[in-house]
């Protein structure tokens, strides 16, 4: 039953804080007068990106992602690392399926009988390929597409040729990979600006999760992206476009782990009537909340401390409000003593809940890892962490008392439990409760070892206000968005970028638009480092 009687270094005193850059700009190893960045390994497009590309290029609602193997999440965000044999096969089938589904008549006007089949093929396919490959086509690339058309035509005529050429495009590495090339004769370790097309692609995939549109490609081709003003103008255009919701939703889906709603279950003995439909509705409510925050108060404080929610009839009881009379989600003002922002949203509290009880441990871990960027070790391998069952006569806080009393456990749990207990007013489906086991809730807590977010609070509302106004949370949010944008964990060479981004984010009062612009305009986003020539193994 007890934690094993071994000494555990655990979390004593020091937490590695990756939210702080490992090297300050004054470190002689890293100078910021010249741009620096770390290497980015070759990546393939993610399956989310594949879906959006197909929608943008061909206006198809086909979802190739459903038939593609999952992307690597070792960085915490989905990155296309290695193509397995299964994925290689699935890419083939996806290309066939898309090629077969495209509405050829919507590609453009060209009468092959009048103008010639190959002329039409070239006219209809090359603009698509330019967008699919994210750059002006080389002579050889165009020739390869025409050859593919010809092979396809030999199988079944002009239209079959077009489909075959489209499928060929979709198995080409220029489509499947985010290709970024070294300048010829570049020294290993040297840093170079991305080409305009490479930059355009990074920008559109970051904000829209998809290929650039014609306007962005044209801006790249004309050199407009080569100046800070030109890049900023295009970045702002993309952010103002409706498609920017894709990047926003994709980031939050991964940062907050929203896919877990699909398999979430509650014990009907404790939460009768809570169904998969409610879980889905909660997720949608949270996403609608994020959208509304971005529309009206797009700051970290807005996200963490707004006192409204987007409520629909089926889940109104979870918020403790009257159901709206009309269908869909409606903005409802909440009681600020009970609800403040993301941390008190029933969706998040449900995600961080056990089937039959609240989950202070995982709620505390969420705050530590996702809002403070302080990773925590898992329990030592040879102790027996016992999950206390709900028991009459004990509140949740009392059931977890061993974490506090046993020194082996306390090393880490002093960082987690006092945070998690702050959420005790909310049950495992996010409803406000005044009592736990018939005793009044004690939601007092404390955040320790967290720079300017440290301090005591009583309840999650106070905690949210404490976190929402802190620099460490703001910096952590910047780190999360930067990892998402760069598709890797920040390295020593990204110190200049990290500093610039944090400074701009802070000076803007935690404004998300400013954050995304700062990331796009940062050295790490606009440059690449040539890898060393030595293979990894």
């Amino acid at each position: 039953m007890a934690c094993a009687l071994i000494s555990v270094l655990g979390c004593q005193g020091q937490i590695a804080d990756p939210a702080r850059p490992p090297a300050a700009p004054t470190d002689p190893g890293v100078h910021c007068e010249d741009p620096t960045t770390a290497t980015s390994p070759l990546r393939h497009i993610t399956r989310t990106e594949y879906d959006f590309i197909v929608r943008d290029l061909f206006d198809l609602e086909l979802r190739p992602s459903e038939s593609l193997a999952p992307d690597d999440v070792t960085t915490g965000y989905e990155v296309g690392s290695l193509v397995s044999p299964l994925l290689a096969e699935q890419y083939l089938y996806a290309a066939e399926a898309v090629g077969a589904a495209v509405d050829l008549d919507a590609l453009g006007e060209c009468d092959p009988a009048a103008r010639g089949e190959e002329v039409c093929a070239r006219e209809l396919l090359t603009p698509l390929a330019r967008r699919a490959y994210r750059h002006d086509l080389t002579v050889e690339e165009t020739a390869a597409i025409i050859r593919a058309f010809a092979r396809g035509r030999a199988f079944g005529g002009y239209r079959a040729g077009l489909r075959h050429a489209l499928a060929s495009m979709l198995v080409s590495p220029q489509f499947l990979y985010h290709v970024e090339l070294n300048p010829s004769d570049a020294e290993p370790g040297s840093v170079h600006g991305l080409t305009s097309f490479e930059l355009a692609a990074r920008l559109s995939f970051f904000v829209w999760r998809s290929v650039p549109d014609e306007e962005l490609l044209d801006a790249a081709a004309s050199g407009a992206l080569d100046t800070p003003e030109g890049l900023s103008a295009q970045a702002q255009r993309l952010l103002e476009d409706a498609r920017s919701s894709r990047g926003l939703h994709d980031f939050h889906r991964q940062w907050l782990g929203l896919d877990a709603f699909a398999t979430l279950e509650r014990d009907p003995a404790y939460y009768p009537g809570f169904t998969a439909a409610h879980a889905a509705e909660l997720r949608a409510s949270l996403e609608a909340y994020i959208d509304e925050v971005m529309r009206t108060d797009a700051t970290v404080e807005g996200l963490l401390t707004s006192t409204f929610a987007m409520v629909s009839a089926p889940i109104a009881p979870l918020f403790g409000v009257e159901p709206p009379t009309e269908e869909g989600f409606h903005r409802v003002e909440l009681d600020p003593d009970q609800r403040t922002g993301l941390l008190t949203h029933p969706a998040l509290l449900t995600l961080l809940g056990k089937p039959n009880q609240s989950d202070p441990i995982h709620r505390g871990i969420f705050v530590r890892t996702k809002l403070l960027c302080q990773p925590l070790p898992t329990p030592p391998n040879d102790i027996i962490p016992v999950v206390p069952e709900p028991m009459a006569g004990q509140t949740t806080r009392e059931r977890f008392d061993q974490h506090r009393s046993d020194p082996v456990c306390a090393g880490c749990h002093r960082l987690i439990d006092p945070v998690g207990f702050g959420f005790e007013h909310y049950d495992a489906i996010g409803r406000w409760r005044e009592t736990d086991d018939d005793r009044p809730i004690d939601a007092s807590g404390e955040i320790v070892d967290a720079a300017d977010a440290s301090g005591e609070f009583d309840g999650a509302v106070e905690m949210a206000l404490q976190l929402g106004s802190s620099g460490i949370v703001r910096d952590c949010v910047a780190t999360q968005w930067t990892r998402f944008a760069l598709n890797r964990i920040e390295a020593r060479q990204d110190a200049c970028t990290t500093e610039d981004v944090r400074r701009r984010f802070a000076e803007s009062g935690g404004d998300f638009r400013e954050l995304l612009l700062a990331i796009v305009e940062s050295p790490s986003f606009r440059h690449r480092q040539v890898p060393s020539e030595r293979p990894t193994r």
Partner: protein
Amino acid sequence: MTTFSSRRRFIRQAALGAAAGTVLAPFVKQLERGGAQAQPAEIPKRFLVMFSPNGTIPSQWTPSGTGTEFTFRRILAPLEPHRARVLVTSGLNMSSTLIINHDAHQAGMGHALTAIPLLPGDTQGGCETCPPSSWAGGPSVDQVIADRIGTTTKLRSLELGVGVDGRARIYTRMCYRAAGQPLPPMNSPVDAYVRVFGDPNADADAVRNRLARRQSLLDHQLESLDALQRRLSAVDRERLEVHTEAVRDLERRLEAYTGTCNPPDLRPTPDIPSIGRMHADILAMAFACDLTRVGSIQWYHSGAYVPLPWIGVGERHHDLAHDTSPGSIEKLVRINTWYAEQFAYLIARLESVPQGTGTLADHTVLFWSNELSRGDLHIHTGMPFLMAGNIPRASDGQPTFATGRHVPLGGRAHNDLFITFLQAYGIETNVFGSRQLCSGPITQLLAA
């Protein structure tokens, strides 16, 4: 979750009985009518792995008695009808997990079939002195076997999953082509069925046509990959080369596969137990048609937080595994007994397909793997490993393994079990995974 979209129009929802035994019977008749790929002169060997998560309750798993005089306890009781085919290899340790002390679930999953330390990476876990990991540090035993016996079949191997978490990371992958090269399992029986069998209703012309078009696509892809290769730095070239090799392999196999196979219709139902049974059926049929010779079924993933409501367990498996109360232990015994039933079903599927004078079960080694022994203690000693089935010896065609026994192996490294397997499949080696842990094959397992 599984999607059964209308695109899968050729999976007819026929009114097939789901009772054991009926699904493969009509298929076997078709085989005899010559509708399947011609069997090679020598019956091929196959290999199959099943994985279940969160360890077990060793006191209810380990048989009492040893040798041929043993009695199954509760958890393995479902294997009693197949007693003669089962070889319980108790007492093996995943000693490789001790070389670098990673988080127990990361290590358990990554080492289960590779027996070698994990690669460093960005995935946090473990104690303060434990480095973050990325993937396993070497190939899995099934892939080494596949490299030997799977070179000519349509698929080198088939990785299937039941409810495997959608995040690709160390906790959810057990099969590896090589260090850092995980193989994703397919959760959808429909997708797996189509991948393995294609469209069984297509006529020969349509199949040939599709094949020709695919070859053309792959040719185009290889040309483009080659052109890009030359412009990349070494580390990126390596990455692209993995993809390129997969495409070349795919092209070779498409060319080589000319047979037809007429599997029975699949009746897709989305409940978990049915998915597991469908996967087992697909593997058995794929083996029978010689479309692949190596397969695996991964139930969920390490540390799975899933309830099993179909056996009346509403709590999540991982939560129960950490609860030592009698009520929870009882549920854990029931969960693991249920997994034993699934393993028994696999054996039964293979037994129902005739091969030569015997069945598929006489030409397949099945291995049941886990990530932990005691889920509560997070330990990797005394692993609940066992094997079933058999393959003929090269020397005299007699069975390789002396099955129908419980053989306690006293803390030997599981590297040695895999060396035993490799040698049985004709791979001449005395090492697998971490070399320092290898003593050689476990000769006690072999028939005289």
